[in-house]
């Protein structure tokens, strides 16, 4: 796999719900339930000094802040290894849930019979959507249009591997299971407006690096992933396809005639066999397209690194499992399959149809980060949701940045300044000490894990 900077930005959903057993009367006595905006404000207020801001770079290289629509958002550190990416991304869940735990304790002290739930999903119950954005560095010399076309051919059908699984209402009032939440909300292939246009790829040119050398490919069509393996697959598979494109490979013949219509078809078919028309007039399914992409990636040849081998193995096994109809073979590794199996099992137990509220509630429980109210912890502990990282890697990522990127320099600076009570200005591509005042140090190479200027500054004032 070509060395490439990966990053993930996860917007979290918030539910403020009455605590079990709390009556409407006690709710009135304790005051109105907080709004989402009030809950998020409380989350970011009721925290230790290091987090007492709504826009904070962290010692582990990530960034925690509040985004449009009062969504807590965690942006991972820049990573070049998939295990670093997964571990750093998982650290975001811990940080945001810790904020919620602290805020819930405050609510309890105040006698407010409400609990704040943090959800790692991509739409509320009324169709408002929010994203999980993926970042991939690319050379400025690459043919950007070619990369966008290649990503389009990949992303329309990628959800059959990387979707989270969800329930949606159809126009006739029925409810059905779909493989991806975000696929229902994407409206165009590329645009510089991620909110109104909702494209597969946001084309705004914001590299957070030396713009003469790099671009940042900003994929915004993917779902948030609960399973670590799905997160690794999402980034790793996309990176392998970008490698193919950057070495002259093309997926142009696999482009759908109508990408958005094809995306809806793929989303409504958990077998991966429903077909759509390509620009060349062929009738292909998601399985067909992903198999063809896999074939071209393998024909080009992948480097002998364990990351690429792991990704190719999971893609291969997933496509084989889908083709055979035996989803148990990938039942713990792909998010949508984990979700589908739980929903299907609950339907078998209770006899309810897809529109029953208990199934919608189950989907939310799967995405709930709380160790008590959510299911992810139980699924992982029982082996029903696969791990990619070791427990030690996950623990380490809470406090330490990846050692192979610029995040190492920035994270070390952030921790050092916080320990000494120095005021600092920090962004992805620079650090600056504001008290005592020192010149800004630019960090324009995201692959540079060391900075002589930052080391000298730390030595001067330590």
């Amino acid at each position, binding site marked *: 796999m070509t060395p490439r900077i990966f990053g993930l930005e996860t917007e979290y959903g918030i539910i403020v719900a009455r605590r079990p057993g709390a009556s409407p009367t006690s709710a009135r006595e304790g005051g109105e339930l907080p709004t989402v905006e009030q809950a998020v404000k409380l989350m970011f207020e009721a925290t230790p000094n290091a987090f007492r801001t709504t826009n904070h770079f962290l010692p582990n290289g990530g960034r925690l802040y509040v985004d449009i629509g009062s969504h807590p958002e965690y942006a991972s550190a820049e990573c070049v290894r998939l295990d670093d990416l997964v571990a750093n991304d998982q650290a975001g869940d811990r940080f945001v849930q810790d904020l919620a735990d602290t805020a819930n304790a405050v609510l309890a002290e105040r006698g407010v019979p409400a609990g704040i739930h943090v959800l790692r999903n991509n739409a509320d119950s009324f169709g408002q959507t929010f994203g999980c954005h993926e970042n991939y560095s690319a050379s400025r010399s690459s043919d950007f249009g070619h990369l966008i076309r290649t990503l389009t051919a990949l992303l329309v059908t990628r959800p059959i591997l990387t979707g989270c699984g969800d329930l*949606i209402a159809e126009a006739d009032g029925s*409810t059905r299971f779909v493989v991806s939440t975000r696929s229902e909300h994407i409206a165009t292939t590329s645009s510089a407006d991620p909110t109104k246009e909702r494209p597969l790829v946001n084309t705004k040119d914001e590299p957070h690096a030396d713009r003469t050398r790099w671009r940042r490919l900003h994929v915004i069509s993917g779902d948030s992933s609960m399973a670590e393996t799905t997160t690794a697959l999402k980034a790793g598979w996309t990176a392998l396809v970008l490698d193919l494109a950057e070495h002259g490979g093309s997926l142009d013949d696999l482009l759908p005639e109508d990408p958005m219509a094809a995306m809806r078809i793929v989303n409504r078919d958990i077998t991966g*066999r*429903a077909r759509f028309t390509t620009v060349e007039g062929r009738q292909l399914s998601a399985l067909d397209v992903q198999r063809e992409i896999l074939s071209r990636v393998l024909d080009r040849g992948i480097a002998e690194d364990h990351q690429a081998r792991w990704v190719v193995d999971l893609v291969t096994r997933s496509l084989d499992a889908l083709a055979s109809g035996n989803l148990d073979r990938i039942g713990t590794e792909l998010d949508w399959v984990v979700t589908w199996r*739980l929903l299907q099992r609950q339907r078998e137990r209770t006899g309810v149809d897809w529109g029953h*509220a208990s199934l919608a509630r189950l989907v939310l429980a799967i995405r709930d980060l709380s160790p008590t109210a959510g299911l992810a912890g139980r699924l992982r502990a029982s082996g029903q949701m696969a791990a990619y990282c070791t427990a030690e890697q996950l623990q380490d990522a809470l406090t330490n940045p990846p050692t192979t990127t610029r995040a190492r320099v920035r994270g070390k600076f952030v921790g050092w300044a916080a320990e000494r009570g120095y005021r600092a200005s920090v962004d992805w591509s620079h650090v600056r000490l504001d008290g005592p005042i020192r010149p800004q140090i630019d960090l324009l190479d995201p692959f540079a894990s060391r900075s002589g200027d930052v080391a000298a500054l730390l030595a001067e004032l330590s």
Partner: protein
Amino acid sequence: MKQIHRTSSRSAEPVDPPEPVDPPAPAAAAGQRLDSILDDISDVLETDALTFVQSYAQQGGQ
């Protein structure tokens, strides 16, 4: 319990419906392994599920 439907903020473009296919069912043994997890939260799923789901209302993000 009432039925509830999650909605999409963008209606799907008119498309030909996919060919009808029977979804594969989880194997019995695998399904049984999920039961203990579902048992753990049976109260949550059966009590005020509709209220909880309908309380999930946010502004959209990016």
